[in-house]
């Protein structure tokens, strides 16, 4: 009997000490973790709008996204941003998209995905020519090419997929041609991933933009 008490006492003391240690750490880091999560969200919102605009956050109901952001420049409404998901190759892809009142896409950024490394995961690839041999180059922020090619397309019309090559290798003329056909290029070998974006823009973003537009026209 004495032994059981001894064993239990040892376990209880240890679990109390480590529980306390973790609780103290949690107290110290709690605010900072929340701040970081907000910061990640904030920088995603900033990434999809042109720089220097005033952004405000809203909570939507009914047919609206449950959280969305609107941006205005000198009091004039520029557009809205919200998060949507599309079904990719391996689970859902969560991305933020912004569009103006006419449905023209202003910007896009991928927040979460589980796509295959080296294939579908290239949705966040930056087409940089930075080589390890010259790491000190220009430190300007380059957008991932895959999401950049959606800018200027209309979410009210079906977005086509072109498989003849990748956008970042095209010159200005071919890019303009694609834009006039409301078409994006697929990532080589990852058409399903590409379609996840075009489909969910067609099905979800278009609906949201339309209902947001209605709401703001009422005012």
């Amino acid at each position, binding site marked *: 009997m004495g032994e059981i008490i001894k064993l239990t006492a040892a376990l209880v003391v240890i679990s109390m000490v480590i529980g306390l240690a973790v609780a103290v750490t949690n107290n110290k880091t709690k605010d900072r973790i929340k701040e970081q999560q907000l910061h990640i969200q904030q920088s995603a919102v900033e990434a999809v709008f042109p720089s220097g605009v005033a952004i405000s956050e809203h909570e939507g109901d009914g047919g609206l996204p449950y959280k969305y952001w609107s941006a205005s420049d000198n009091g004039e409404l520029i557009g809205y941003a919200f998060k949507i998901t*599309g079904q990719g190759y391996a689970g859902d892809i969560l991305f933020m998209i912004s569009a103006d009142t006419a449905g023209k896409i202003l910007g896009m950024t991928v927040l979460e995905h589980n796509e295959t490394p080296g294939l579908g995961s290239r949705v966040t690839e930056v087409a940089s020519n930075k080589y390890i041999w010259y790491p000190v180059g220009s430190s300007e922020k380059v957008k991932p090419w895959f999401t950049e090619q959606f800018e200027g397309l209309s979410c009210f019309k079906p977005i086509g997929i072109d498989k003849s090559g990748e956008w970042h290798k095209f010159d200005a003329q071919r890019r303009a041609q694609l834009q006039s056909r409301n078409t994006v290029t697929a990532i080589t070998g990852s058409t399903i991933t590409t379609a996840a974006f075009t489909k969910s823009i067609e*099905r979800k973003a278009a609906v949201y933009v339309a209902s947001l537009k209605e709401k703001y026209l009422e005012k």
Partner: protein
Amino acid sequence: MNSFMSIVQIALAAVLIQNFVLARFLGLCPFFGVSKKLSSATGMGMAVVFVMTIASMFTWVVERYILVPFDIRYLEIIVFILIIASLVQLLELIMRKFTPSLYESLGIYLPLISTNCALFAVVIINTGTNQFTGRPFTFIESTINGTASGIGFLIALVLMAGIREKLELADVPKTLDGLPIAFISAGLMALAFLGFSGLSFFAASGGQ
């Protein structure tokens, strides 16, 4: 219908598409340690399916009704590891007492399971969001996820044991003998399992 679809998707993903061993690299120690003989591989695999299912149920209840309401999710890691360790002990006792025949075939693998990272991984995955619905796992979903992940492990383990029994007779270069050749076989199996990625019964209705 929607919840049924999500269950089928979870099961399909856990067994084939994102197989615990061959696509996610979880549970590799028992995968290489217990795959020398087909009979022990089957026993170990069955024990894992069993414990994973029960652990998924228990941890889901603890997470939902204790950790979340009291806002102590930061203790998740410690609590789960304790639950798993005591659950395995408890199962061993219960099995020995009530189902001695089952204990004889699976019992010796139980102590090996408490430090199996696949088991810990599945309960951690169950605390996240279900990638198919975008919401937290429900009780049914997390139970299915546990069972299906265990079945994925069982399949990989049994296939591997079959290969390794044949490898015994093969003439392997001396430097690759033992673990390296087992890794190469596992790599070839993983290559085959890559073929399952993108598989979906509901592709037509995807993106809703």
